[in-house]
């Protein structure tokens, strides 16, 4: 397995998908990722993905497990001065910070870009927020599909002539793509920091990333007052005919045709979906079943390297690409809350038993949450 980022260490304040998945992608490329939470503030994925209320529930969320494998986990109280001091010491041993808190949270804890740059001028500090770090809307709150709406994606998504549609909470599309983009930029900045000795502040607006995926629509609207499209169903500009049709077995398939064809609905209705797809493909027509989550689990060829199992056999996120033809091996499962706090503080900062015990007694470190729902 190729490890282009071997030797790079990441201080990961990333939460949910946008931040935590950016760090996960860095881990997959060989970086040593230290995920920082605290007893008072869990990654919300531990809570929204809760599957039971028994002791240790915070360590069993599938969504957390999917996103945080191949990381080590520390719990350090960001609000306690001692916790802040320990994190600043850790920052001196790191190359990258990833965070997607609301703007100002880390600054108030003395852990923002200016403060950490003073500790470590080589740091690449990736701040991922809904609107970016500047501008009149920088403090606006958003959650997942808020950005489908405000980015322009929703305005063009939906049944023809009907209301706009969002991707919804089971997709939260803008959160997914920002991590794909941010990872590449962080790697670029790490190269530059290695070469020049100077880090940088990377300010990502998730809303801008989502709008960027409609770049040609924004360009067209800017030059042509007549370019004012609405929801397009399954059509696309420049495509003669494409849509989804229901087959005899009740399943939907999608196909892109070279020309409009009045007979396609009847053709699909008369066949089971697998037969209809095979027949269309044989005619050189791009066609596919509209898979659901269970279909994705069953079709291991289609899954490629995107789904893998951790050491406990549990399903987790794999890689979106292959390096030298390979996916990834999961070297460690997603950490329990605070699982590696002591080990990392011993390894990197040389702390001993007395210091670790004092931090625990003072409530700076933890392995159990001090809060319920977030």
């Amino acid at each position, binding site marked *: 397995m190729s490890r*282009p980022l071997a030797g790079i260490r990441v201080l990961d304040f990333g939460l949910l998908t946008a931040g935590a998945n950016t760090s996960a*992608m860095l881990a997959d490329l060989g970086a040593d990722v230290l995920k920082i939470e605290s007893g008072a503030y869990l990654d919300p994925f531990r809570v929204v993905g809760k599957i039971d209320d028994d002791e240790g529930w915070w360590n069993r969320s599938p969504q957390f497990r999917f996103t945080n494998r191949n990381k080590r986990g520390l719990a350090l109280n960001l609000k306690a001065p001692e916790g802040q001091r320990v994190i600043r010491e850790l920052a001196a041993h790191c190359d990258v910070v990833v965070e997607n808190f609301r703007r100002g949270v880390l600054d108030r804890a003395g852990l923002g870009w200016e403060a950490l740059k003073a500790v470590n001028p080589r740091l690449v500090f990736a701040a991922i927020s809904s609107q970016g*770090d*500047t*501008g009149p809307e920088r403090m*606006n*709150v958003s959650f*997942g599909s808020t950005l489908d709406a*405000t*980015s*322009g*994606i929703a*305005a*063009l*998504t939906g049944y023809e002539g009907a209301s*706009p*549609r*969002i991707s*919804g909470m089971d997709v939260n599309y803008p959160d997914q*793509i920002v991590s794909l*983009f*941010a*990872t*590449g930029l962080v*790697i670029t900045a790490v*190269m530059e920091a290695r070469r020049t000795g100077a880090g940088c502040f990377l*300010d990502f*607006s998730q*809303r*801008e990333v989502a*709008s960027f*995926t409609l770049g*040609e629509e*924004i360009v*067209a*609207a*800017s*030059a*042509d007052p007549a370019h*004012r*499209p609405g*929801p397009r*169903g*399954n059509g696309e*500009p420049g495509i003669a005919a494409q*849509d989804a*049709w229901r087959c005899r077995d009740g399943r*939907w398939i999608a196909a892109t045709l070279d020309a409009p064809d009045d007979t396609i609905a009847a053709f699909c209705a008369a066949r089971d979906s697998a037969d209809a797809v095979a027949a269309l493909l044989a005619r050189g027509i*791009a066609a596919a*079943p509209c*898979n*659901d*989550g269970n279909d*994705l689990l069953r079709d*291991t060829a*289609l899954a490629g390297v995107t789904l893998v199992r951790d050491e406990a056999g549990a399903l987790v996120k794999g890689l*979106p690409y*292959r*390096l030298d033809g390979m996916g990834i091996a999961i070297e460690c499962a997603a950490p329990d809350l605070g699982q590696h706090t002591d080990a990392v503080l011993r390894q990197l900062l040389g702390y001993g038993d007395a210091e670790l015990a004092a931090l625990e007694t003072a409530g700076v470190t933890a392995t159990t949450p001090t809060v319920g729902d*977030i």
Partner: protein
Amino acid sequence: MNDAALPLQRFTVVEVNAPGVPLCLRLATSLAGKIAADLGAEVLKIEPPGGDPVRRAAPLLPGGSSALFQFLNTSKRSLVLDLATDAGRTALAGLLGRAQACLFEEPAAIASSLRSGPATPIEIAAFPLEMDAAARPVSELAIQALGGLMHMIGTPDARPLKLAGHQASYAAGLTAFTGLAAALAAHDAGRAAPAVRVSLAEVMQWVNWKAASGAAATGTSPGREGDRSEFQVLPCRDGFVAVVYTATQWPATRALIGDPALADPKFATRAGRRQHIAALYDALRPWFAARTRAEIQQEAQGKGVPFGPVFTPAELLETEQYVARGFLAEMTLPDGDRLRLPQLPVQWNGRSFAPRPAPALGEAA
């Protein structure tokens, strides 16, 4: 990095646009190359005689050029080579000899030689290797279907819907850029750079991971819920607003709307709200209908509630936040069309990466 320097300017990347490749693959390759070019890499776009078909792809601008091409090919250089000839292939080999990486598509006739060439291969494909399907027809829509995204959008009793735009292509293009950056970083550190292969189907499935995780956890796949969804889009006085809030934001949402009906205990828990979703939306609807998007956004943000006004691409050109951040670069094309186009969605020490106009065909010859 000083003001003039760009982070990737010491790298050369060759982007091979072979003829006859499906459009959805070309868009992914082009996006990855564009990001590298805007960041300063010398990106040599090798076009077939007649040019990349995207030069003629919708949407078109008033002057006749393609908005899609302009967006996806900023800051690149264009060279025309006929790779069906020895001369074309020899010229390409010369360019590859001074490039660190090469972007190309799996169905290209020249793909096998690019895989073993001197420049690290970054290959864009439609499907995973296991599907043994280099010749299988592909489209953006088919990838959104196959990766499970369409199953998630729309209403349960009607057609599954695609997400607007070239999302399968662009998610793969972003992924290919990240793979390219990883390869350049390995190269820079004196390590062997990995060959990168990106398939649209794998990226779409990866992006849609919650469908798989949900199905694995409960046995039932998440899917499109239409008017049974917790998050719906409601009409307001001047358009539409996406109703979005987290469980902890429910009390603030209830206070914002102010309808006593929402105090009913049946709405107190998330499970209760899901069970009585039609009644809940009946109570929400009048508040939205009476207000504009701007009023809704202001009142909701004042209470920390993340409702999302629906903006069109045309409206985004005027949006205060984008104007303040300088997100949209101004550009004038040789034919006189004046454009504004989204820059790379990142600011690096406060700096944006201003794109140069897409090249005329063969301008670097």
